């Protein structure tokens, strides 16, 4: 009879978790936070929650809906701009498509764009296009390129090589492989990412409202500064409902793109 092998040592795992806990505890100990404020938070949340949602002021609803559509428009146009630029650039940055110098150059540019906060991009654009929603849409388009292009080249690189090899074997060049092998295989994922960009932009457009690009975010920030809690409550309800609506519709379309049509009349589980 063979003896059971000795259980693997748990020492490294223990040391790692001890080190991680030490880092976290040090962070908590050395961060200059007014922890006592946390104790007052439930009472404050209750008080302001009652002010906001106890009796929301509905007379500014038409204005709120107008601004919400402005936010959605910024998000939509920003997503279009972002996708139109990042798909070709992302494809060029994928391994095996463009030359190496172009690939690393483009990836560097994407990394820099990812590190620059959207607000900074918006503040630079303000000097060109002014305090308009157009600035917001442009800022969303440019700020999104970093991540969107990264997703694009990661998608292309994770594709199966088989189809591209088949095109090459049939005598096609790089452009032919891109058009007939990589593009159709990557299209559903890229479309789904494009819709996801739209959903992200909806949230981001509120941020741009704070620097004056317009939209429901700006209105919300203004009324928070005016301490008009009834209107803030109404705006929050509008933002939450609008975002959830967009998420639901866009999510349903994304699932339809990625998983295909539901089978009709052939579902055996029923």
């Amino acid at each position, binding site marked *: 009879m063979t003896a059971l092998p000795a259980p693997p040592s748990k020492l490294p795992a223990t040391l790692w978790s001890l080190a991680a806990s030490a880092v976290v505890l040090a962070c908590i100990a050395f961060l200059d936070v*007014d922890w006592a404020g946390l104790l007052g938070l439930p009472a404050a949340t209750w008080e302001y929650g009652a002010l906001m949602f106890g009796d929301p002021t509905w007379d500014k609803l038409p204005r709120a809906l107008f601004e919400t559509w402005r936010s959605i428009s910024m998000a939509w146009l920003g997503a279009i701009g972002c996708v139109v630029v990042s798909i070709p650039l992302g494809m060029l940055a994928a391994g095996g498509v463009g030359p190496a110098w172009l690939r690393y150059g483009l990836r560097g540019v994407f990394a820099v764009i990812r590190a620059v906060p959207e607000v900074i991009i918006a503040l630079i654009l303000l000097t060109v296009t002014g305090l308009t929603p157009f600035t917001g849409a442009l800022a969303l388009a440019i700020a999104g390129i970093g991540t969107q292009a990264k997703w694009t080249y990661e998608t292309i690189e994770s594709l199966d090589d088989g189809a591209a090899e088949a095109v090459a074997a049939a005598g096609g060049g790089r452009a032919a492989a891109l058009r007939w092998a990589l593009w159709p295989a990557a299209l559903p994922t890229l479309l789904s990412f494009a819709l996801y960009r739209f959903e992200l932009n909806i949230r981001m457009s509120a941020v741009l409202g704070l620097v004056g690009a317009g939209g429901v975010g700006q209105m919300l920030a203004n009324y928070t500064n005016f301490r008009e809690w009834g209107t803030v409550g109404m705006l929050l309800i509008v933002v939450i409902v609008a975002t959830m609506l967009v998420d639901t519709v866009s999510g349903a379309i994304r699932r339809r793109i990625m998983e295909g049509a539901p089978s009709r009349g052939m579902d055996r589980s029923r």
Partner: protein
Amino acid sequence: MTLAVPPRPRTWPRTLVVLAALAGLTVLTCLPAIGGVELDFASIAKNWRHGATKLAQLAQPDLRFLPRTWVPMLETVQMAIIGAVAAAVVSVPLTLWAARPTNPNTPTRTIVRTVINVIRSVPDLVYATILVALVGVGALPGLLTLFLFDIGVVVKLVSEAIDSDRHPYLEASRAAGATQLQANRALALPQTLPLFANQWLYALELNVRISAILGIVGAGGIGRLLNERFGFYAYDDVSVIILEILVVVILIEVLSNLLRRRLT
């Protein structure tokens, strides 16, 4: 005998409808009368030099400013870590309650999911603005914002991943007579831990990025300094801060990739 090629499926009518819908939506978003965006490309052609000047100024970082950024940057990293860890702790039970295989009880699952969706649909800077009004200026509203944001991301993504997987081991545990709590504790949790770890690290990366903007509304960290220098038109300092954020984000990405390989 020759084999007949099957006819090509007719997909162009559907493509046409989809394209028309997209074009219609785009047109609606360009109508200023109903709140759409007024496309003003002429102003770019007219004023692009202003932006180019700003970019040129940004391209000349003044590294002498670097020592003044250490303390706020450290505060940002601390906020990011504490927010991510607190969210990680809270996200475990919430996620297991929000996924069908680990919580077959429909009413409680729907409640948890609805709450998470509501939390997710409020933009992070809106949380920060309101929390600054509630608890005052400082790192605390920033921390709470990161915490709420991370919970939304982690619970949503992990519970959807659990939902879409098959879970034969949970069936086995039920056949062996385990309660749902026992099965979750002994099987579902260790099985899904890599999924969790992935999203926790992702939340940490996002936190550093977000805290760059939280300072604008007074929620602490490097963003406050960034906003202040921008207000003084000190673009050489601003670009130092942006470069520093870039370095920290890349460091955290490298570190979390290392941890990911170790954990999964």
